[in-house]
């Protein structure tokens, strides 16, 4: 289940793309060019990418409010995403959804979600479609350490077992739900909770792309073989505040400095690739440069794009209402 060099290069490119994308979104937000608020994924890249590298285009993911990384990892196009976040008509959702509602079903991305715990039932549904229609696809739901407490998550774990669904619950534990620590809010063990439903579950070090990838590969294989759902409890850390407006005083400066210095999944991967002699530094530098250009263009295009025509306010509510909504 080792990743090939090509896969590793691709994974590095994706992680790098997410990091630069989020850094630029942060800049745009600071500059007042992001109309709403936005939740940045920087620091957690290895999770989204490790998970999505184990999936096919026809597989599904259901995301969260912190969805940019998942979207990019699953193949959403960054130009549309940046335009959406800036509220432009060229956005993935024509400017109607914004940062918290990016979706692209063509690549199996069933949507970011503004409701904590909103996703797991939807992922069960996508898995039901795959099972009933016999497409062989699997479905993945990302949830945070906060969302794991929401009743919808528990109900979905049980339903996934009862219906033996090809669904994988990826719990991204970054230690915080907004300004409240999982230390305080999430009792017991997430892995044991899943096992209480008879579900296969394991804890995974999210700092390691390959650990995430390999655990995910095994879970996907079980799901495709009709062996049912799995839960992965992946530990990770977020680099920015909860959302762009969060000054993040509830985490000590030393902790945050230590994070970026010693627990940056992107640095980890780069070191592993270069020191392991898998991909030379200059090849990675080329990727970095290409990513910079890609995102720079996304930002420039998004800034230049027009806001949605007010006439589109009442479109897209229904497929067919027989009268205007």
């Amino acid at each position, binding site marked *: 289940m080792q990743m090939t060099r090509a896969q590793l290069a691709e994974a590095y490119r994706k992680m790098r793309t997410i990091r630069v994308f989020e850094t630029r979104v942060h800049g745009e937000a600071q500059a007042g060019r992001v109309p709403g608020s936005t939740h940045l994924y920087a620091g957690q890249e290895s999770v989204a990418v490790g998970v999505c590298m184990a999936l096919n285009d026809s597989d599904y993911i259901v995301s969260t409010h912190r969805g940019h990384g998942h979207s990019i990892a699953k193949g959403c196009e960054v130009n549309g995403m940046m335009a959406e976040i800036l509220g432009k008509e060229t956005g993935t*959702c024509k400017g109607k*959804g914004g940062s918290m509602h990016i979706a692209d079903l063509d690549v199996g991305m069933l949507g970011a979600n503004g409701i904590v715990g909103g996703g797991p039932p*939807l992922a069960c*549904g996508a898995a039901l479609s795959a099972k*009933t229609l016999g497409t062989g696809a699997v479905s993945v739901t990302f949830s945070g350490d906060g969302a794991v407490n929401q009743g919808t998550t528990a109900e*979905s774990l049980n339903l996934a077992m009862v219906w033996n669904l090809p669904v994988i619950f990826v719990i991204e534990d970054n230690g915080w739900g907004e300004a409240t620590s999982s230390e305080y809010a999430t009792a017991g063990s997430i892995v044991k909770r899943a096992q209480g439903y008879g579900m296969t579950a394991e804890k995974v070090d999210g700092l390691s792309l390959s650990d995430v990838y390999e655990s995910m590969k095994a879970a996907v294989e079980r799901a495709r073989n009709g062996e049912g759902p799995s839960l992965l409890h992946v530990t990770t850390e977020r680099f920015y505040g909860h959302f762009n407006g969060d000054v993040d005083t509830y985490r000590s400066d030393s902790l945050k400095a230590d994070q970026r210095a010693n627990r940056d999944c992107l640095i980890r991967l780069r070191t592993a690739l270069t020191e392991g002699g898998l991909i030379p530094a200059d090849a990675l530098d080329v990727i970095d440069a290409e990513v910079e250009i890609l995102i720079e263009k996304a930002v420039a295009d998004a800034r230049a794009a027009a806001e949605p025509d007010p006439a589109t306010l009442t479109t897209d509510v229904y497929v067919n209402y027989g009268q205007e909504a």
Partner: protein
Amino acid sequence: MSRKTFRAALNEALHQEMAADPRVVVIGEDITGGTGGDGEQDAWGGAFGVTKGLLGTYGRERVLDTPITESAFVGAAAGAALTGLRPVVEIMFVDFIGVCLDQIMNQAAKFRYMFGGKTRCPMVLRASFGAGARSASQHSQALYPLFTHIPGLKVVIPSNPSDAKGLLIEAIRDDDPVIFLEHKMLYDEQGEVADQPYTVPFGEARVLREGKDATIVAFGRMVGRAEEAAKILANEGIKISVIDPRTTAPLDTETILEFAEKTGRVIVVDESSPRCGMAADIAALVAEEAFDSLRAPILKITPPHTPVPYAPSLEETYLPDAARIVAAVRRSMNYKG
């Protein structure tokens, strides 16, 4: 054409649509009954027997019993509808929407808009509703004003077996999320129902009778009570028009306004609670759009602003009846501006 109960008409619609389209699946609590036990299978066919017999024909792959977790399985229906299935999910009593409203209000209803018109969510949520069965406060509500208030949902309230079948088939074939509400006191009502599949379009009111003196707009079980009242008044030579909009979203505003203008007197009879309710919604429409034809105040006949009580003496007082409707029409007729 043959006589069928409201329940049988719904069951026939489900059978015919499941036969016609393999993407149609049925989901809910006890919709078969007996699952996992040593006794009869398909023992219930749903708490009201509407899904009875589907298991035998379509099997457990397409007739899915659920744990008691409405958020999970209603959300699953929404997710399945996004990805190729056409689920018909049952909530036993609409009162239970309180435990899963998010999956309807913030997910299914809003996907298409939030996602810029790129998705479809063809799901039907069926639920029983209404008072009259001595089921008390948590099992007797109407609640369709909540759904009607939420943009992105379609809301259907059949008042008779024939409409029940045609509207349910329309709902299953519709590409938007549809809330389909069945009054629990109507399940045993009989009526002529065509045997082959057919649809009744959304947003087209049924005109039960035309009369020049006043217009009664009513929904669900109240349609029958409006008819009762109209018959009583007919004996006195008072000619009433009775309109059943059949769907609250979309709403057939044209027909309602046409009759408001023709008669100049409008009485709305509705079982949902009065505040921000269905009667207020219709009255406000008429007060804005048909003002100059009005010859009397728009009257609303609804239950009081209270939960639904248990004791028969209280529940019968709670519900609008023919006598109250007749009295209201008389009040309207005798009104001197």
